[in-house]
């Protein structure tokens, strides 16, 4: 333990130098913690915004114009898959409708299905800004943009022209914010029966089965699995339809890794150069210790321990500073909140200590080459 004792004493007798180097490590680790958490949370937020309230995997008929004949066996395959979010499976029917009000008109996509399933995927109740979500016969739930454009509020009636030429008057039960302008203007939810009567389909016939899964990035595997288990259907999933988004996320992740790597390199160079200076400053002491019989390995360990102590102190400070930055960022006017991942923080801290230790290799090797004769005769 003598090398550790000497290392700590060397650090204590050069407090300014020790504080500077520990601060350097702390700033580096804090940057890593902050940038890493920021990018991870930003990505999670982007994924959540993009697909959080949409189906991840959709089972359709091979020909989109034809209905999908939904059987109990087919539903069971989807519903009992453990990767599927419980309850977030719903067979839907879709039809267009035209809403006109004097000069203004809008084309709506009416999605009809069971409220429980629709709510699990689209989170209608959670996203309600006015009214109470109900999807009984003659009810409709509309988006905020449409409601503004036509000055609609819960309780109001809307007259729709349907593709079969018929006109229906529906009652707005709730206005919801679906998270995207286009959806808020075009998407509306009705009971499953309305599109069926317009399309002239039978009771087991649907446009698709929509499902949300627990880990969105499992969608490719889930889709492949269902393709082999369900005959005569087409299965699509969000990842193949959002290749651009995935590329963007990957690029963002790569640039984040690059920033983190360069920060770590800068930290490593800082520690290595400061420790090298310290090794030069302590050459006399090392020479004297060696003259008294300290081995090269023991002498090298002094700088290894210095690096470890500085690494631990700097990393602890860096993690604290990183959390402080994240806390400060929580007051920034942005659309998402940063959630620091404990595993990522632990990884950053381990990297910080490891980089510090690696930085001591040069001074440690220099130390092992110090010749006590030169020191003694140099005076």
């Amino acid at each position, binding site marked *: 333990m003598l090398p550790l004792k000497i290392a700590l004493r060397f650090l204590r007798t050069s407090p300014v130098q020790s504080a500077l180097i520990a601060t350097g490590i702390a700033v580096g680790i804090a940057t890593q913690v902050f940038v890493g958490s920021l990018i991870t949370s930003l990505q999670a937020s982007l994924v959540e915004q993009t697909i959080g309230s949409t189906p991840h995997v959709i089972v359709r008929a091979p020909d989109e114009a034809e209905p999908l004949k939904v059987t109990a066996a087919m539903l069971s395959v989807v519903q009992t898959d453990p990767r599927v979010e419980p309850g977030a499976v719903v067979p839907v029917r879709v039809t267009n409708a035209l809403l006109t009000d004097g000069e203004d008109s809008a084309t709506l996509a009416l999605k009809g299905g069971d409220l429980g399933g629709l709510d699990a995927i689209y989170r209608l109740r959670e996203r309600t800004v006015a009214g109470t979500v109900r999807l009984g016969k003659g009810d409709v739930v509309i988006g905020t943009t449409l409601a503004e454009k036509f000055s609609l509020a819960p309780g109001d009636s809307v007259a729709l022209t349907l593709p079969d030429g018929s006109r229906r008057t529906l009652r707005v039960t709730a206005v919801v914010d679906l998270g995207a302008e286009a959806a808020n203007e075009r998407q509306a939810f009705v009971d499953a029966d309305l599109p069926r009567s317009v399309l002239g389909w039978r009771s087991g016939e649907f446009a698709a089965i929509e499902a949300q899964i627990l880990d969105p990035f499992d969608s490719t595997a889930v889709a492949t699995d269902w393709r082999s288990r369900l005959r005569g259907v087409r299965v699509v999933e969000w990842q193949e339809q959002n290749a651009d988004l995935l590329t963007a996320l990957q690029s963002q992740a790569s640039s984040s890794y690059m920033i983190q790597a360069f920060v770590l390199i800068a930290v490593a160079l800082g520690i290595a150069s400061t420790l090298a200076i310290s090794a030069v400053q302590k050459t006399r*002491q090392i020479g004297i*210790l060696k003259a008294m019989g300290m*081995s090269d390995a023991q002498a090298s360990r002094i700088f290894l321990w210095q690096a470890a102590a500085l690494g631990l102190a700097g990393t602890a400070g860096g993690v604290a500073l990183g959390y402080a930055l994240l806390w400060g960022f929580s007051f920034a006017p942005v659309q998402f909140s940063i959630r620091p991942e404990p595993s990522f923080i632990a990884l950053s801290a381990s990297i910080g200590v490891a980089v510090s230790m690696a930085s001591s290799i040069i001074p440690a090797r220099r130390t092992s080459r110090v010749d006590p004769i030169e020191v003694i005769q140099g005076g």
Partner: protein
Amino acid sequence: MGDARSAPDGVLVEAEALTRVYGEGETATVAVDGATFSVAEGEFLALIGQSGSGKSTLLNMLGLLDTPTRGTLRYRGQDVSGMDKLKRALLRNELIGFVFQFHHLLPEFTVLENVLMPALIAGSHAADVRERALETLELLGLSGLEGKNANQLSGGQKQRVAIARALLNRPAIVLADEPTGNLDTANTEAVYDLFRTINRELGTAFLIVTHDRTVAQRTDRIIEIRDGRIVGDVKNEFGRPARD
């Protein structure tokens, strides 16, 4: 080949044709050339010579800080000439105490910690050797200074702390390189007297390297080195302090 730590048979150091050459070919310089002599356990001798005569090189080899190019060096019968660095470091720690012209104390540590250092390097626990360190400090008239930083002492005190440090592991020999070179007359006297006292009380051998003949005259034996060769090795009957 015996073990350097085994019981002494009277001879502590044996140097046989000890030679140290620096450089190679035409630029080769022979710093020490065929030095042959021995030092008995508990002997008190001086090594004298002008600067550049090779006395420091010889001292470095005797102190196991350097290895001879040719020749043999034995400590208590064990050949140490070809020993690797680590073994030499271990033996140095155990058998040899150094006192340099400059005190070479560690400024980051207290007087007591500096004195304890050779024992700590050997792997002892501070608590186990603290008593011995305090005794050694007392022997050197440094009681009460153990908690001070090495930088707070006078030149003479620093040199005495360095001597205490050299003695802590109770070495077989103290190699002192111009130990009084930086001290005034009074302190020079005091250090010399201390060496004598320790030599008598602890039986530690002393080899004092000096260019000061008055210091050398007070030892029991004087080895003189010139141009790397030993040119004189005489008993000095007048060097022994008067005994009552």
